[in-house]
């Protein structure tokens, strides 16, 4: 998602922010995961923006490649702000003048929270594949511990897109008494075969790289090529036919004619190679495996409703704003409509809008006045009613 991050054109920002860390589940009180494994100690990296007033907390959940740095700058020299700076800040869709915003790096991630690249206290070496498989439910459970630590009993809202949206749904069902409203964007109650297929190809690209070394690569170069290819596959699914046509077409990169070899002739090739290599600099290949697996396993109906999404949502009491995007073929609108249908069947308060957008799944990360205004209006109503 980093390729979209822009400085606010109006110069509005939450300003300087600080990444903090919270450690819990110290042995022998490890966190018991959904798989039955025990994991501890666990550290979550997190950031907060705005002032906590007891009833104004908004939890923002990030997607696959995001982190706790959702808004603002770490230093005055920082070239780019956090990944959702267009949405979070003074007077923005999630207004930090009104709300206290929390964003934490997910369990299994690699941006300061405990994940496969963390040191296993039992061996003194990075976990690698000894890290237990975590689920979206485990990520949410860990976030709940963080909120307990911060003294936040109720969330005015949980907001997130894609895998972040899965966490939003999980929050609303797992902790119904703590969630007043939920805003799942461009997400699903479970991956389609198509989504699993792309994730599997991406994982295979990593695992087929000889430098992956069965996940134990932390003292070597690591599967840079495999991870880059995995990211390239991801980027294709985040865009759309239309987005790619507009963004690249068949234009050539810095040349007038074909090279008649296997260099990156087309702009789209060059773009994917660049995005792949940039991603390798900041992301851990094993985290990519663990997080995509967690997303593939996520199945709200199976986990919470004995196979029924409607039954799963009967546990929540939150008010929902569900949003999808027309050109998102990774999590198409019909999947959001399934969420809406299940909420209606339960007599729950739900708003839904399918936004016309050409940028595919990534649309939720791009500046979108309509999305910002809807989130603003939805949160303002909820805050006014408390």
């Amino acid at each position, binding site marked *: 998602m980093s390729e979209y991050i822009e400085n606010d054109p109006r110069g509005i920002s939450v300003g300087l922010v600080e990444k903090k860390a919270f450690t819990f589940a110290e042995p022998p009180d490890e966190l018991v995961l959904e798989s039955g494994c025990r994991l501890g100690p666990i550290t979550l990296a997190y950031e907060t923006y705005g002032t906590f007033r007891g009833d104004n907390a908004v939890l923002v959940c990030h997607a696959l490649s995001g982190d706790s740095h959702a808004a603002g700058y770490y230093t005055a020299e920082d070239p780019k702000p956090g990944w959702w700076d267009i949405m979070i800040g003074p007077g923005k869709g999630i207004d930090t003048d009104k709300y206290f915003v929390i964003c934490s790096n997910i369990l299994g991630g690699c941006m300061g929270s405990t994940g496969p690249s963390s040191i296993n206290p039992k061996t003194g070496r990075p976990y690698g594949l000894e890290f237990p498989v975590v689920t979206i439910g485990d990520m949410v459970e860990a976030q709940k511990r963080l909120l307990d630590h911060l003294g936040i009993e109720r969330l005015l809202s949980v907001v997130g897109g894609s895998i972040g949206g899965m966490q939003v749904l999980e929050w609303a069902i797992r902790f119904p008494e703590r969630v007043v409203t939920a805003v799942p964007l461009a997400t699903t109650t479970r991956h389609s075969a198509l989504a699993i297929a792309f994730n599997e190809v991406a994982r295979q690209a990593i695992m087929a790289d000889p430098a992956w070394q069965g996940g134990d690569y932390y003292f070597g170069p690591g599967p840079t090529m495999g991870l880059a290819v995995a990211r390239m596959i991801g980027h294709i699914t985040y865009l759309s036919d239309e987005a790619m046509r507009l963004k690249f077409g068949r234009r050539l990169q810095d040349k007038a004619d074909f090279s008649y070899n296997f260099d990156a002739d087309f702009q789209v090739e060059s773009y994917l190679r660049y995005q792949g290599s940039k991603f390798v600099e900041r992301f851990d290949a094993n985290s990519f495996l663990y997080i995509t697996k967690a997303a593939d396993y996520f199945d709200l109906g199976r986990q919470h409703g004995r196979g029924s999404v409607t039954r799963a949502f009967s546990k929540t009491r939150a008010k929902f704003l569900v949003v999808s995007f027309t050109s998102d073929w990774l999590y198409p609108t019909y999947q959001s409509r399934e969420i809406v249908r299940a909420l*209606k*069947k339960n*007599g729950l*308060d*739900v*708003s*839904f809008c*399918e936004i016309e957008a050409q940028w595919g799944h990534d649309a939720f990360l791009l500046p979108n006045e309509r999305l910002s205004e*809807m989130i603003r209006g939805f949160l303002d109503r909820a805050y006014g009613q408390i």
Partner: protein
Amino acid sequence: MVRFEENGIRFDLQWVASWIPPGSKVLDLGCGEGELLHYLKTHKSVEGTGIELDEAKAARCIERGLSVVHGDMNREIRDFAENSFDFVILSQTLQQVYEPAELLRHILRIGKNGVVSFPNFSYWRIRLQLLLTGYAPVTRELPYQWYDTPNIRVITLKDFKKFADAVGFEIVRSAALVIVDEKRGGRRVSFLSNLRAAYGIFQIRKNHQETLKQTKSPAPSKDESQRKVKETPS
């Protein structure tokens, strides 16, 4: 006399609103930018929901803090449980509905009451236009040419009453309205309403008699049900 527009809503919507008791649970089908829902929420503490086909209008509703689902009412209405609402409102849209009987059955399945309003096609101005000019009528209430109208049906107040009998629902109350002019607003007409009214508003509910009949009559025996099948024209 009711003002043409007051508190941001048209006079026919003001009339609809006057029938909704405070604190009711309301569904507005085809809610537009939420004028009626907003009015009911602020003036009557109504718990309101809307369905709107147009993305920009649905988004505008959500921005205003209303609960609105962007989608096709004919499809969206199916997901609500029985008696989910005190009132389900279908305002100025019946003439655009492809399967009106099906939609009304759903309205009365999910709502204890329905409120249906539509432009009256037997309004004298319409009759006169057709009679005198020979062109398809274009009026303030139905301001479209035949080639650009979203309206696929013409309905009169009398037709709707006949329709109630055919579909099996009960008309609890009705109001026939006419616009006097845009400055002074509209008023109700009671005499020769099918001729003089520009709009009709009907509050409907499930036919109590029918429901009683259905629940009281014993289950048909095998012979009877076979006989019934034979009687049904193919």
